[in-house]
């Protein structure tokens, strides 16, 4: 049995990291060899930058906390933060991998127990988590090890074990509600909708929770004071945090006391908690996992209802222009795929929740002072318009919708539009328009909350929305073109098209760069005393110029790229 599960896990990992595929693609066929090198370089440098930054932050944090004899707090916070992150992202990942992967149809007929399949899938998620966690957690572990002067080999050994066990418990905390939700959703005809709503609720709750914890946490420069206060009480900070989530304190003690008996005891506790949680997951999963999956196989057909009516309906549809028709289909496909919605629309939910949280934080006198300063600033109306415009743009950059427009078609479906008599320009425009509509609609809640909080004049909201529509459309077009140039078509699960797609990262970087340049320029001009509204007009002009240039580019490139895009 163990061997069976092992080979299942190995096959899953192979597929997940596309090992066989990459070997075939890059080594056997020797095509585009520069690609993996370039990608590795880009990711490597990004990871290195992040890692160094985190190392520095952790070192700083250590020096502050060690001053009052609480150095281990660095570990606790690092581990806790990493675990919260795993839990947030875990929910969506679990739903995607457990319920919406294409190989389930192959795995379920195999003579495997549900728990075994679950274990295989869990291993895949875990492996993905390690890749990301390495960047965040290893610098913290190294920083502590270097500064705290711990004994070498035991610390390294404990570090490795703690790192490996780190994501297990939080992932299971996310996985159990996800499995139960899908079990319930499987009973319903609207299971996709339920999955999406559940996912958003989870995100909203965690964001709110995070915010509440943060407003209670010390501000910059106050740590020492805060820690001293904590120390004055009977408990150390480690215990305070640990009381809420014991595994993080076990991990801390296991590391800080590496090589001692107490450390060993904590390590055993930490690993034991992981094992126990895993067993619990398997026990629950063995009972309810397949029921949820099987529910997903039934497509909810309404066969027989008004048979001829549906054909008549065809005639009721007005014929649309190709671009409109393609855009409509694009939106339907996106919004009907839970994994896409959970990934692409998260920002639409997260930001309004954050704005609300910020609103409540106004009660804090310090934050309230900041707010008042901001609200009474001259030119607020114009700045507000810029902020709203930027909000649309940030949503577009974060949503991943435009930058996966072609990738989402995948090898399976790209032929459909390629065989239609639509030029590359038409297809790209259809996808860009669809992305734009979804982003603009998704921006409405955030703008509404923002307006409720800040109470900008109508003219500035209207200007902001116009700016936002233009700015997000520039990103939609560039995103669609980028994804047309090098789409990721070779995925097995739709989830990969949006989650493991480097084009998404490219989109975020492009968005970040543009916003840094435009935002920097705008604030400079305002500082130099230019009338704020003229800056708004200037930015608007620049955006329109960019848009015009992009349309030209679209006309020049899209048809050629469309022809070259061989599934």
């Amino acid at each position: 049995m163990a061997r069976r599960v092992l080979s299942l896990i190995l096959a899953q990992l192979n597929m997940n990291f596309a090992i066989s595929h990459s070997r075939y693609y890059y080594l056997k066929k020797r095509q585009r060899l520069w690609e993996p090198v370039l990608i590795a370089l880009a990711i490597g440098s990004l990871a290195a930058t992040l890692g160094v930054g985190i190392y520095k932050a952790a070192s700083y944090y250590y020096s502050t906390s060690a001053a009052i004899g609480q150095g281990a707090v660095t570990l606790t916070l690092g581990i806790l933060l990493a675990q919260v992150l795993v839990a947030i992202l875990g929910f969506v990942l679990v739903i995607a991998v457990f319920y919406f992967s294409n190989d389930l149809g192959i795995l379920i007929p195999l003579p495997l127990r549900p728990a075994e399949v679950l274990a295989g899938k869990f291993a895949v998620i875990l492996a993905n988590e390690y890749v990301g966690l390495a960047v965040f957690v290893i610098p913290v572990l190294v920083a502590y090890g270097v500064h705290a002067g711990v004994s070498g080999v035991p610390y390294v050994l404990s570090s490795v074990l703690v790192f490996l066990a780190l994501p297990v418990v939080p992932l299971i905390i996310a996985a159990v509600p996800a499995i139960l939700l899908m079990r319930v959703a499987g009973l319903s005809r609207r299971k996709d909708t339920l999955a999406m709503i559940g996912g958003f609720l989870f995100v909203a709750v965690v964001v709110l929770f995070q915010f509440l914890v943060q407003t209670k946490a010390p501000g910059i420069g106050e740590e020492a004071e805060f820690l001293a206060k904590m120390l004055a009480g009977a408990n150390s900070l480690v215990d305070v945090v640990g009381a809420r989530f014991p595994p993080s304190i076990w991990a801390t003690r296991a590391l800080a006391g590496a090589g001692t008996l107490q450390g060993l005891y904590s390590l055993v506790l930490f690993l034991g908690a992981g094992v126990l949680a895993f067993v619990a997951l398997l026990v629950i999963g063995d009972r309810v996992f397949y029921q949820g999956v099987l529910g997903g196989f039934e497509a909810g057909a309404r066969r027989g209802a008004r048979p001829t009516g549906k054909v008549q309906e065809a005639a009721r549809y007005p014929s649309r222009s190709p671009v409109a028709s393609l855009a409509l289909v694009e939106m339907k496909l996106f919004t009907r795929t839970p994994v896409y919605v959970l990934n692409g629309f998260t920002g639409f939910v997260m930001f309004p929740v954050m704005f609300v949280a910020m609103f409540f934080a106004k009660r804090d006198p310090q934050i309230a002072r900041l707010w008042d300063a901001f609200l009474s600033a001259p030119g607020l109306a114009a700045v507000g318009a810029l902020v709203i415009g930027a909000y649309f743009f940030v949503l577009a950059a974060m949503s991943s919708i435009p930058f996966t427009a072609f990738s989402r078609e995948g090898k399976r479906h790209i032929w459909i539009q390629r065989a239609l008599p639509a030029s590359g320009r038409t297809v790209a425009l259809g996808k860009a328009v669809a992305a734009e509509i979804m982003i603009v609609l998704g921006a409405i809640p955030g703008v509404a909350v923002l307006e409720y909080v800040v109470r900008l004049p109508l003219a500035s909201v209207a200007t902001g929305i116009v700016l936002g529509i233009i700015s997000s459309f520039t990103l939609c077009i560039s995103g669609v073109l980028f994804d047309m140039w090098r789409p990721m078509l070779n995925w097995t699960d739709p989830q990969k098209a949006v989650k493991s797609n480097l084009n998404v990262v490219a989109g975020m970087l492009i968005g970040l760069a543009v916003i840094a340049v435009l935002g920097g320029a705008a604030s400079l001009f305002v500082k130099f005393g230019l009338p704020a509204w003229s800056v708004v007009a200037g930015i608007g002009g620049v955006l329109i110029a960019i848009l015009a240039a992009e349309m030209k580019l679209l006309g020049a490139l899209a048809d050629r790229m469309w022809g070259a895009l061989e599934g």
Partner: protein
Amino acid sequence: MSEVSLLRLEGVSKTYRGATKPAVDNLSLEVRAGEIFGFLGPNGAGKTTTIKMVVGLLRPDRGTIVANGHDVAVDPVAAKADTGYVPDNPDLYDRLTGIEYLNLVADVFGVPQAERKRRIGELLGMFELGPAVGDIIQSYSHGMKQKLALTGALLHDPAVFILDEPMVGLDPRASRLFKDMMRSHCEKGHTVFFSTHILEVAERLCDRVGIINRGRLIACGTVEELRERRKQADETLEDIFLELTEPGEAK
């Protein structure tokens, strides 16, 4: 049968990136108006590759393909507008309903409203797909998906109708219907080009057949002509096919 050629391939070659041997090697053939052309060959011979080049999904390395007077490489949109295509494994958008898919196709092909209504009603009725057309495609059986793909490909009454192994997955009734439909499609002066492994169908249905092996067209003509060329009057198409494509045989 007229002399107008609706589909013409001239010296078409394609080598997949990284492959050592071409999948299609200097292939030339012509399909005339009113003609059903059967494209035969063993597994891996290059049929699908050829068809994908014809419908613009793959770009040939060399050679030209002209569909209804439009060079596929020069004016792909015009060529596609006159072509209907059903792949060997029609993977349609699972999350659209049948009618949503058909409307997309009709919109992009620019099929006018009244025409659209008539054709959709006719084709769905013929394939008995009417009751399912409001359901999402995910809920369809393999054959139903194929019928929907066929319906989509025929909506605009294409001059050139290209099918990759169309008979796989169709039940006997649908298969018969489909054969009748190919015939009537040709009687309108259009042309049908399809690949198949079912040689009896090819023998009975096709005006002409082409046999491809390892990327090269090794025989082309009416079944009668092929027989004559081999000077064996009583051979079936199956005999001819098996002899021509025997592994190890030089040509």
